[in-house]
């Protein structure tokens, strides 16, 4: 019996338009994405239901490790240099252009001023390795943290947002220390960075 011969269809699909669109999307995402900056200590932020997003610009972030070390970060490289210059005059340190430049592109900073020169002279890999051992002094005798916050506020003006990022397991005493220092400076509004937690409607309502 003669079977009707089906004409063989070409299964080739033209992928060119597809790849065009994809490249477009890829470019968009690559350009808009902001990458996580490496931090000197790993911090697991606690969960909260708050859905407010952190603003992107002029954020002065305070990182508190579980051991209570304090690291700071400021986004704009030029502002970082101005802040550093202010701190250097306060602590009678003369800065070289190289130190300023290195400081402006570094990730977080958290070295006591007395160790600053010595630290900046080290190669970058060594710096990253040693940074977690330091931390900005926040004790009442030598509170350089206040100096940094004050200097940053002077440089950035009123729009600067202070954000505290601390580990879940950081004891409250360390937080109190930082918050107390901020309170002394009359910095009473700040943001606490958290990660999102979903709360179901049932949980939310309780026994209402």
């Amino acid at each position, binding site marked *: 019996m003669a079977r009707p011969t089906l004409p063989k269809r070409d299964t080739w699909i033209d992928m060119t338009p597809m790849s065009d669109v994809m490249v477009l999307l890829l470019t968009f995402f690559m350009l808009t994405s902001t990458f996580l900056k490496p931090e000197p200590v790993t911090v697991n932020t606690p969960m909260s239901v708050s859905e407010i997003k952190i603003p992107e610009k002029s954020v002065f972030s305070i990182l508190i490790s579980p051991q209570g070390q304090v690291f700071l970060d400021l986004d704009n490289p030029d502002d970082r240099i101005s802040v550093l210059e202010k701190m250097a005059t306060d602590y009678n340190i003369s800065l070289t252009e190289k130190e300023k430049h290195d400081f402006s592109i570094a990730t977080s900073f958290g070295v006591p001023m007395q160790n600053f020169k010595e630290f900046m002279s080290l190669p970058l890999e060594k710096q990253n390795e040693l940074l977690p051992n330091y931390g900005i002094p926040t004790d009442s005798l030598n509170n350089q943290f206040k100096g940094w916050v004050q200097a940053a506020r002077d440089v950035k003006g009123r729009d600067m947002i202070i954000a505290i990022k601390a580990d879940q397991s950081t004891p409250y005493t360390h937080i109190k220390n930082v918050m107390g220092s901020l309170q*002394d400076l009359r910095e009473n509004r700040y943001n606490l960075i958290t990660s999102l937690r979903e709360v179901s409607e049932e949980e939310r309502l309780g026994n209402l």
Partner: protein
Amino acid sequence: MADKKGKKKGEMKKADTRVNFTPLVDMIMLLLTFFMLATTLSKPQTMEISMPAKDKVTVEEQNEVKASEAFTIYLGAGHKVYYYEGLPNIEEPDYLKETDFSANGLRSILIEKNRNIVQQVRELENRKSLLQISKEEYNKQLSNLKNSKGSPVVIIKPLESSTYSDMIAALDEMLITSIGKYAIVDINDDDKTMLRNSSFPVN
């Protein structure tokens, strides 16, 4: 892959110029997925908080809070919460109670305490989800509701043995239970004495 059956001998073979884009698309898809996930996940949430200025808070001001509205919670070690309502009453043995951060713990107590406002906030949320009111209007009414008279005033006192996550969890409960008036206050000597006298293993 073009059909070459009908070709005559001697005719020049036309080279197929079509390039297979499938592997390229695969790779781009992979990169795209990576960037999409990386961007959405990298933006952390934040909690806005206003602390009272140091010189403003005096003991007298703290005591101004009406006894019927006041609610004090202590955050202890091991994610434990101790609370009392109204004014401290050291004579009564079990006025200080223990609870935790579970849905049936602190949350249900606070919802009970703030029932009136929680219900109104719920209605407001419903109206917002039905698009009866705009977002601005919602935010305005919400803050009015939260700061209305007679709403409870929660005083959060973290003990030295508590951690940062306890503090955030407590602030979170304020958000969930629609409590607008709350403050983080350091513990004083009176609190310490009181906790030491309580039946709970504090300090």
